[in-house]
């Protein structure tokens, strides 16, 4: 891990530990929990976009697979929650392979449209055949492992954010590894990578599977935390929301995904009175940030810090 990442990671851990201590209100923690769930999905999409150069418009589909598979297995299948969550991740991974193998063998727009279609179809399936249909179902068991059940807001806050930390640690190591270097090389020139003997397609497929698995994990956590799910949480709008998070945070930096997730999750809380206008508001945010603010919050912040440091060094 590089020094900057280590510093960021320590700050991150301290913030996560301190938030419930400093502001123990259930409301703050609940917003924090949803930020964490969204951050998991956003980290996956960020790796896919920033490092494999592909867009997915169907993360809500994997998120939905995670939520539904895990809740149904634990509710009706009698599986322990942890096992159901893992099985849901495997299910999402298999769906990702089926989508990515045909779509990623070709260059271009194919993955974007295939995932858009996938998300829409999952949404239709959940409405048609999901338990409870459009109104969804409840009584989903709380998250539990080793005989310990998480049912308090603080418990969920720590559970979800420690998973975010674990996923982040894994992802940072991944992009600093040989695979990560290969991914960045793909971004610069696919042709050169092929010439060097890297299998570009396999790498892209692997990253796509990873992003689907992260989304599935987030979906399962969402279901076991809220204990009630309905298809409306897994519509195309959620995929777009996650896309907005990643763009706003900055696609070239994984920390951007977390910052973006927090900003975009907190934003609607501040914009309560625009509730009916959500699609319009997010459409505007997404369009404007793509037009004028393309690099995202975190890369711009890093540049500012570097400049300040440069000035300080120059003065001495």
């Amino acid at each position, binding site marked *: 891990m590089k020094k900057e990442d280590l510093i960021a990671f320590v700050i991150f851990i301290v913030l996560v530990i301190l938030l419930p201590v400093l502001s123990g209100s259930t409301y703050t923690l609940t917003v924090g929990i949803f930020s964490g769930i969204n951050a998991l999905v956003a980290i996956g999409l960020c790796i896919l976009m920033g490092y494999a150069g592909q867009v997915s418009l169907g993360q809500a589909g994997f998120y939905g697979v995670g939520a539904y598979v895990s809740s149904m297995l634990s509710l009706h299948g009698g599986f322990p929650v942890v096992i159901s969550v893992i099985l849901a991740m495997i299910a999402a991974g298999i769906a990702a392979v*089926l989508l990515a193998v045909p779509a990623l063998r070709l260059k271009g727009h194919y993955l974007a449209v295939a995932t858009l279609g996938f998300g829409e179809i999952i949404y239709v399936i959940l409405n048609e055949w999901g338990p409870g249909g459009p109104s969804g179902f409840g009584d989903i068991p709380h998250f539990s492992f080793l005989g310990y059940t998480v049912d308090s807001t603080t418990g969920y806050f720590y559970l979800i954010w420690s998973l975010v930390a674990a996923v982040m640690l894994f992802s940072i190591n991944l992009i600093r590894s040989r695979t990560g270097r290969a991914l960045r090389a793909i971004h610069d020139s696919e042709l050169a990578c092929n010439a060097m003997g890297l299998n570009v397609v396999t790498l892209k497929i692997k990253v796509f599977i990873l992003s689907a698995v992260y989304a599935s994990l987030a979906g399962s956590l969402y279901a076991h935390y809220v204990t009630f799910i309905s298809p409306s949480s897994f519509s195309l709008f959620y995929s777009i929301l996650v896309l907005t998070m990643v763009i706003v945070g900055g696609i070239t930096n994984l920390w951007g995904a977390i910052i973006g997730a927090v900003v975009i999750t907190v934003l609607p809380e501040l914009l309560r009175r625009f509730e009916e206008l959500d699609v319009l508001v997010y459409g505007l945010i*997404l*369009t404007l940030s793509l037009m004028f603010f393309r690099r995202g919050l975190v890369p711009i912040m890093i540049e500012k810090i570097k400049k300040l440091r440069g000035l300080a060094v120059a003065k001495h």
Partner: protein
Amino acid sequence: MLTVFLQFLFSGLTVGAVYALVGIGFNITYNATSIINLAQGEFVVIGGLMMWFFSESLKLPFLVSVAFTIVTAGVIGLLMERLTIKPLKNPDLMLMIMITVAVSILLRGVLMFSFGKEPYVYPSFTEGEPVNVYGAIIQQQTLWVIGITGFCIVSLFFFFKKTIVGKAMLACAVNPTAAQLVGINVSRMVMFSFVLSGIVGAIGGMAITPISLMEYDKGPMLAVKGFCAAIMGGLGSNRGAVIGGFLIGILESMTAGYIHSGMKDGIALIILLLILFFKPAGLFVSKTMLELRKF
């Protein structure tokens, strides 16, 4: 038996006609710019909802409403290109995809804000008894949809083959630099392609709304299916998009009729994946052509 089959066939042809128009819309912008405009579905919705606004809400005469709707869609296409696509200095593929997605969300937001979430409908273009073909009942509007689609296809064919603007647009698609060198205003052709694809989508929306209703969030599904149609025939080939569109429409309505209505939306995705897997160049474009393309 035959009656039921014919009934499904005609309903398939009706939706298929709209998929074909969306597919052609994709082709027009793709040929001129190598961009897949994912907001293509929203133009169909704009067509349906604006037609309702002009003809039902403002009570304008039919032809005036049609003209106004076409102008509105064209202007939105123009604004989209000038405000979001043109300012991109060195566009990469991912950015262009995201820009068109962003615009589609924005359009959907505006549509929801102005029209709300409920579905809209207006009467068929002509009133009259449905036509009876071997016992299958065919609404007059179905004939309108198919007729209008046919008219669009034929006029686009002549536009690209016989008019100087159409030929110039094709030239930009083949080689923008060379087109610029012979004096074609490439930037204007790109703008024009967005206007034209917006109008084609809106025409589809105007025609289909009396049959299948229109609401603000129908865009993405239409885009996915139109894209399937375009891929099936091979991106860039209008003939392919038409055949692809009708095939998907028919397969969908057969699935809905004979198997289960909930499965009809899944069919398009399965077709899309199968084509990508086995014949990515589509049915009417050679593999070499596909490899020569920028994206």
